[in-house]
């Protein structure tokens, strides 16, 4: 049963461009209970991990999606005619992690956290859809509030924002670094 369910899910994930969420699966397969889907998904992911296929199934932004394994980066890039993936600048990354850890947050708050004006970085991040405007803060000037997006999660291969290291874990990281 699980095996057949795994194969159905495999087909659904294969055809999905965006990560396939549990909610979407439930929509497509209303007769199947979540208790059946969960183990089937895990089984499917494990099957790909165990095989020596060039692709695997990853969980990101709350859904499942096919992804190539890192060792096949060069040929894939050649096919897509992409020299190399663009990386974020140090400034942008710093602004982004300030948003991620303090969201929802205003531009002024980010500038205070970093000690530097961050308008340019925020603009770059908005352009790349790694952050979005979620409204205005009830404060003088009604400044815009920013949050990270779903693309932020997929970009960094995170499943949920909680997957980022906690304040405690970051502290440990810092200690390791200075040790």
């Amino acid at each position: 049963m699980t095996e057949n369910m795994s194969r159905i899910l495999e087909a659904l994930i294969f055809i999905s461009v965006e990560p396939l969420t549990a909610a979407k699966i439930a929509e497509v397969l209303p007769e199947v209970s979540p208790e059946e889907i969960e183990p089937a998904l895990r089984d499917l992911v494990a099957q790909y991990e165990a095989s020596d296929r060039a692709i695997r199934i990853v969980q990101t932004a709350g859904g499942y999606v096919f992804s190539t394994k890192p060792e096949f980066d060069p040929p894939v890039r050649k096919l897509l005619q992409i020299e190399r993936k663009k990386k974020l600048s140090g400034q942008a990354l710093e602004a982004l992690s300030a948003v991620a850890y303090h969201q929802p947050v205003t531009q002024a708050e980010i500038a205070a956290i970093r000690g530097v004006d961050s308008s340019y970085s925020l603009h770059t991040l908005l352009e790349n859809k790694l952050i979005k405007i979620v409204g205005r803060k009830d404060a003088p000037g009604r400044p815009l509030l920013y949050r990270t997006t779903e693309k932020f999660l997929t970009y960094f291969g995170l499943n949920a924002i909680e997957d980022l290291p906690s304040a405690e874990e970051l502290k440990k990281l810092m200690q390791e670094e200075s040790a």
Partner: protein
Amino acid sequence: MPIDDHQIPGPGAPDPRIPGGEAPAAELVLPAPPSETPPAALAAPAIGSSARAEEGYQIRLGMFEGPLDLLLFLIKKKKIDIQDIPIAIITREYLEYLSHKERINLDREAEFLLMAALLIYIKSQILLPREQPVEPDIDPRKELVDRLVDFQRIKAAVGVLREREEEQSQVWRRAALTAPLPEADLDLIEVSLFDLAESFFTMLQRRQGESLQVIQGKELSMDDKMDEIVALLKEHDFLDFLEYLGAHDSLEEALLAFFCLLELIKARLVVAIQEQLFHTIKVWLRKETSFAKVNE
């Protein structure tokens, strides 16, 4: 609180370690004139540049993302406990870095100066005798320390994100193959609701001065309007957002057109794009739509 440090280098009492205030910075070891640094490099210094900073004073401010970054570097270099910063020592070190600049570019370095002022202010708070301690338990350094600790955490998170970005840059998903406008320039900005609303209000304001008109009792339906927009887009490829809204006779009609456009954007049938910041907003028919129509 023990004050184990003293003497802040100030205009009155120049620190012996900083070559005299008036003396030109020529004596200092500064490999390249700072003015030669291209602005682009300043705007986006390469990551890991602060790691190279061990080479003593041959580093430039441009290597630091900001004043907090420089402070953290100094704290690490001097092996100082972040919870108990000797303000005088750190201020002296900090000012020494600033003094290597022949000219201060206010656009970029105002923030570094602000931090210098804050350090000196904190030191003065520690030194000034008070008749009555305002709040004896509050360390004047506390706010800065809290900021530094938080910033340190953000830096650690940057490291984590950088690593993940590197990992992810080597794996590919199918989403990469279906960019919304594959033939279009990467600099295109899909605009947010806020941009659209702002644009709309600009148009309203522009038209406020116009004389009043008699409103004709016209039947307006959203469906008809949306059909009209789609038809126009098919004919013209794109519409100038403001121009189109402005072309309507009555406010009612302009509002309807605005809501129809929002509705079409929400339904992902059209896309609103700004080619560059401050450019006009253009509305395009989404490419996928035409595919969808073919499949039907």
